[in-house]
């Protein structure tokens, strides 16, 4: 078990290193530079700025400094926002994205498991057919469309009731989070529902379910302690990629709902060619996702007795 965890953590670190290197190389191939920034600067100022950000050194030296700083957990200072460190930006805005993401994950796993189970238990009936249809819609409609229609709907409700039922943008209270979180998790919810349904249908045909029925166990007991428990396992494996999808999907939702999350910062940084912010946020996001996937895998190993982590 411990060996497996260490092995996974090591390969995770290697992946993060790879991400950091690719990002560094990518940023040095970008045409244009952040110092020019649309303003004509005198050679002296340019030189000073290059010195301040260490751009006067050869690329290989810059790379070593960059990796060293990263190991210390220091992502550098933003080019466009005077004297604001990338760590500062992450500290201020990541909690926003993370709160939204966790809320979205909670909604989609709980609703997805319930919906998928219902569709699986009542397969072929109306609820299954409508569920399958809803899943197809959820997969096929871009989230920004849901976002825009959601905002419109809420605006109309607000107008109708004459009070703010839910705010349609901004950040601050729990109410601000509801609509963006729902929009954010819709496509993941659709996938989860589908996964849960097919996984349940597979379990239903297993011999041990027949045994349970032959023993005369009550329906509910069979469902909860035999069918659901086994069918839920693939859903848990999907959680790793789902977290990835939801955190990176946040770009669009944060853009539409004007949420001061990290995704918006990333897009802004890319538009302004803010090297350090782009590199810092990419590595941070990358590391976050890599370790989330590892965490989910370890949890999966703990839950599923058929998988022995020590052998893997």
């Amino acid at each position, binding site marked *: 078990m411990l060996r497996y965890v260490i092995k996974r953590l090591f390969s995770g670190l290697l*992946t993060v290193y*790879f*991400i950091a290197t*690719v*990002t560094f190389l*990518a*940023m040095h*191939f*970008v*045409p*244009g530079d952040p110092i020019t920034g649309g303003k004509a600067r005198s050679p002296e100022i340019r030189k000073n700025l290059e010195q301040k950000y260490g751009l006067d050194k050869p690329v290989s030296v810059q790379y070593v400094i960059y990796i060293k700083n990263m190991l210390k957990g220091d992502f550098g200072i933003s080019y466009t926002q005077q004297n604001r460190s990338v760590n500062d930006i992450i500290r201020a805005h990541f909690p926003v994205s993370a709160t939204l993401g966790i809320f979205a994950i909670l909604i989609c796993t709980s609703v997805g498991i319930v919906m998928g189970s219902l569709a699986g238990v009542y*397969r*072929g009936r109306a609820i299954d057919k409508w569920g399958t249809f809803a899943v*197809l*819609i959820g*997969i*096929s*409609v*871009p*989230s*920004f*469309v849901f976002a*825009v229609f959601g905002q*419109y709907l809420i*605006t109309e409700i607000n107008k109708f009731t004459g009070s703010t039922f839910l705010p349609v943008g901004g950040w601050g209270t729990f109410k601000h989070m509801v609509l963006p979180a729902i929009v954010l998790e819709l496509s993941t919810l659709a996938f989860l529902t589908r996964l849960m349904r*097919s996984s349940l*249908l*597979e379990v239903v045909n297993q011999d041990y379910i027949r045994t349970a029925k032959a023993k005369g166990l009550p329906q509910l007991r069979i469902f909860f302690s035999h069918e659901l428990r086994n069918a839920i396992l693939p859903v848990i494996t999907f959680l790793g990629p789902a977290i*990835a999808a939801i*955190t*990176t*999907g946040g*770009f*669009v939702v944060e*853009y*539409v709902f004007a949420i001061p999350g990290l995704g918006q910062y*990333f*897009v802004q940084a*890319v*538009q302004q*060619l803010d090297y350090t912010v*782009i590199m810092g*946020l*990419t590595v941070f*996001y*990358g590391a976050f*996702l*890599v370790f989330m*996937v590892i965490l989910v895998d370890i949890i999966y190993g703990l839950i599923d007795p058929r998988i022995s982590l020590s052998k893997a």
Partner: protein
Amino acid sequence: MTLETTTNTNQGKPQIISLSSDDFAVAEKNTGTQVLSRPSLSYWKDAWIRLKKNKQSIVALVTVILVVLATLFGPLLYQVDPAEQVMGRVSEGPSFGKHVTVIDDSSNFKDTILEGVEASPTFEAAKLEAATTFELTQPASSQGVALKWSPVKGASGYAIYRATEKPTVVTNLGVPITEITAGNQVTYLDNYDLKEKHYFYSVIAKNVEEAPTFKTLEVRLTEGILLTDAQSIDPNAKIGDSVKIPAKPFGTDALGRDLLSRLISGGRVSLFIGFFAPFLSVLIGVAVGGISGYFGGKTDNWIMRFTDFVMALPFLLFMILFKVVFGAGPGEDGIGPMLVSLVALSWTGPTRLTRGQILQLRESEFVQASRLLGAKPLYLIFRHLLPNTLGVILVSLTFSIPSAIFTEAFLSFIGMGVAPPTASWGSMCNDGVKSFLTTPHEFIFPAAIIAIVVLAFNILGDGLRDALDPKMRSIE
């Protein structure tokens, strides 16, 4: 010739059997007992028959083909320049060749300044009266509303308000349109953001403060066209004529560009990326995965380690990053960088899939038999291994097309996709969403077409999976 031979029987006594040369004649071919009762079906024919039975998939297939044909041949049938801006027809809803009234160009409108009326008299605002008349000087149209009112005694100016509901109190007259700062100017031409609706104009006299009373005029706007615009359609058009304007089946956008022709040209971009990015990824994937799976060992190990790394890259994040790296210079459309970034990040899926399939097939009996018969590696790969992975790969291709279309749409929607003026469905959504509340058609049409195409591909993918790979068939 007769031949005698001895065989041993269980009695131990030799027995003589006589054989004639007839006994060695070539046996007649035994026909008739093994006639195939059904025609032999190839794998693809069989799959096609199964797909045809699936009505949903056929509808999806037809939809996809129609949309593709529309984007390919649409410009031949609907010859409207997608970049042409008609300023007189901004944010129009769908229409089919309607007749509109020609009105005078706004540049020909002259304000009426009355002589003999004082421009800035001194007067108490509270004693100001409402204008006695308030009228139109030419038919009101969406191109402009020409207002004229009677001068009010003691006014040093007027304020014009516009509302969509009849105003009842002086404090609620609607949107302030203008303030006139001379008591003797009694006309105004309003052409600010007019729609073909009912409007209530109110004029209120001013002298430092506004008067306590006002005069309201109810105006129903018809659609109009400016004289110069009308003359570009029909050179003989005169003021007051009715002119038939070109149909806009999907309306126009905020810059007066035709939405249908933009949807067609945007579709070319979106579908080009949607088809080619997955196609190139699959080509690379089949090559790399094939090599990895067939040769195995160290090669396989290294290739797989590398794909694992690429797969760990957060997709959208690196998509944006790579797009910037392969950057679009000024004046470029940004389609190339988008394509390259998509391929650079999505070749790993097909690679893993192909490798897995090849690994499985490599050890299967028919491949071993072929190898035993002396088949060379290239022959094995092209004759046995690749054709047998084709079905699975085709299914994964069908599923990756909608996700490529989605990625393009997402990036263009947050302004990181194709560069204007090039249209794509995603960038059109981005343009349209800004005016969603007033002119929803600008957002709804591109959004709907994305949803329809992606839905069709998803259904088609499900159908193809069931048809091509019965083992993977989703449980019904």
